């Protein structure tokens, strides 16, 4: 298993009545009423400190992602964060997992290829290149890309990126959306033929096909946990089988919210309000923002109009215990957490590249570090050997880090040996 610490960089201090007073956490939240640049500077620094702490504590990778005009996660440029992380973790075996810079919002998209190559050079070949399609909120509503062109632009930019990293000769790109007469990337990545590629998705069938056809790691970035993802991930593995690929668990990534404490009761005391803050405030946006007409192709539109199965649950009505019970969040004692992750996520979904979100919503800095410390000491060592017995190779991890046994923090080693 490879286990990475994921961060959204949320606003940690939204007002108690946020979801009643404002229509959305995304696209339209008013900056001047809700935020203060100095305080936000503190959030960015906490975020970096937390990810660096995770790196030192023995996680295999650190993940950042891109969102815009959004109080639940506002790293408009994940590569700025990734750059700090790459420099500060030099000399270690931590992967820099960019989940990532969004192709359709980068113009021309070779900007992403260039910045990723820079990160790979700075980190000595430790980059995982996430190439997300981007959400409709970010791409269509904040960055003005026409919904009907969103996927076409992405696919063209994806092909251009892969070619730009690998081409031995200067080439011209006469595309539908992008035209470049002399593509000659400086720098090129250290990793050959190119850094491992992860494609995050949210369950769209056409992304399964795309991921399998391109032989990348498909990552389901879910906030609804493994139980809700089960049918969908079965769909993914079916596509893997149908297209004749091997069932290598490292073809799949999954994001899970996790909160660890000394006991299940302690977990509730420490984390309940932060979990509720996350689901009630951070995920507060109208459904229409997620599906502007034209964003889904006709086939998917028809399929989703016919299916009443995957109606999103109203998370505003759920409380901490519901989130835990339904698996949205895996929380509790180390034993509870490791058992549930192993059974529900790793084995249940067949996941080799696990991402865990340990800073949740309003969770303060100190508590985040506590959560990370407990996870790395009491949970991570038990998960890492999973899949080892089956002998799969993680082709979607930087080659020189594939067999690295990340040194666990002193206490972690002691605990694991005890």
């Amino acid at each position: 298993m490879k286990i990475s610490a994921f961060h959204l960089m949320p606003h940690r201090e939204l007002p108690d009545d946020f979801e009643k007073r404002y229509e959305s956490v995304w696209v339209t939240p008013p900056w001047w009423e809700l935020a203060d640049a100095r305080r936000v500077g503190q959030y960015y620094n906490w975020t970096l400190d937390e990810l660096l702490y995770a790196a030192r504590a023995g996680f295999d990778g650190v993940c950042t992602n891109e969102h815009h005009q959004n109080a639940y996660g506002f790293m408009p440029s994940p590569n700025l964060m990734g750059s700090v992380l790459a420099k500060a973790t030099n000399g270690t075996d931590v992967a820099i997992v960019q989940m990532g810079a969004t192709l359709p919002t980068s113009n021309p998209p070779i900007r992403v290829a260039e910045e990723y190559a820079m990160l790979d050079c700075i980190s000595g070949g430790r980059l995982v290149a996430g190439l997300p399609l981007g959400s409709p909120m970010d791409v269509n509503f904040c960055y003005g890309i026409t919904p009907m062109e969103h996927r076409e632009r992405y696919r063209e930019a994806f092909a251009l990126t892969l070619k730009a990293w690998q081409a031995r000769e200067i080439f011209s790109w006469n595309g539908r959306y992008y035209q470049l007469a002399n593509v000659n990337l400086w720098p090129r990545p250290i990793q050959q033929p190119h850094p491992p590629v992860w494609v995050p998705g949210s369950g769209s069938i056409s992304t399964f096909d795309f991921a399998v056809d391109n032989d990348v790691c498909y990552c389901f970035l879910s906030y609804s946990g493994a139980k809700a993802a089960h049918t969908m991930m079965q769909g993914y593995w079916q596509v893997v089988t149908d297209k004749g690929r091997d069932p290598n668990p490292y073809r799949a990534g999954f994001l899970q919210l996790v909160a660890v404490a000394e006991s299940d009761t302690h977990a509730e005391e420490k984390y309940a309000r932060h979990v509720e803050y996350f689901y009630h405030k951070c995920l507060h946006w109208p459904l229409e923002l997620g599906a502007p007409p034209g964003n889904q192709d006709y086939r998917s539109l028809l399929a989703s109009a016919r299916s009443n199965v995957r109606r999103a649950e109203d998370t505003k009505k759920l409380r901490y215990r519901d989130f835990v019970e339904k698996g949205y969040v895996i929380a509790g004692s180390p034993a509870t957490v490791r058992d549930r992750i192993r059974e529900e996520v790793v084995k249940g979904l067949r996941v080799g590249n696990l991402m865990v979100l340990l800073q949740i919503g309003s969770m303060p800095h100190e508590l985040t570090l506590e959560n990370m410390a407990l996870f790395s000491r009491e949970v991570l060592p038990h998960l890492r050997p999973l899949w080892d017995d089956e002998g799969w190779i993680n082709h979607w991890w930087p080659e020189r880090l594939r067999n690295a046994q990340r040194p666990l923090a002193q206490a972690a080693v002691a605990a694991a040996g005890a």
Partner: protein
Amino acid sequence: MNEQTVSVWQGRVRMRVLSKGDGPPLVFLHGPWGLTWDPFLDHLAERFTVYAPEHPGTAPDAPDDVYHLDGLWDLVLCYDELLEALGAEPVGLVGHSFGGMVACELAAAAPRRVRRLVLIDPIGFWRDGDPITNWMTLDAGRLRDMLFHDPGSEPARRMFGVVEDPEAAIAARVRRTWAMGATGKFIWPIPDKGLKKRIHRVKAPTLIVWGKEDRLVPLVYADEFSRRIAGARVQSVETAGHAPHLEQPEKVARMVADFVGAAGGG
């Protein structure tokens, strides 16, 4: 009513055209919610041969044809080919909302094709102080409220009403959504795509019709059109929102017919 499919754009874009009536040709370009043959078109068919083409991608069984068009220029040329195929004589051209913008672009690009031009609550301009509501971001309930002066009226029910048959209800929702996507391709995120640079080329006598209670594209936008088209006339329609031809079909059909039917203008 007759139905024909005209293939344009090297056969890649199939446009279904509904038609009815006889008399001089009148072409109607529908708005962002797809074409339905309504009483307004029936009234017009009493005096004209009404041709109502469906915007690329919105005809049944041809949803993906719209992907062959990269932008407004491609779209305008498609309509130019369509008019050629329908018969080369100059037509009365009527467009609603998005279709009004396309009609105006077409009249500017190919002035000889258009004898008289009628724009019903058209889009095509942008004023920071009077933003046009992006209907692609509204749920069905809010869209209905914003679109119609009386959301409980018969035309509103026809567009959004509860349909008993669940399959038909799904089909209606998919059709409306896809039509918004396929038209939205040419106007996202702000429906000002440079008409102001081209509108001076419109030579046809022009009537601008506006629903007085239009909550999506406010009446002030009538000025943007009338001051740029020589001799253009504005007529507003009482107790009507963004689709006055649906809420006041008889009245608006008479305005249009009297204007298009009048002598002159080629």
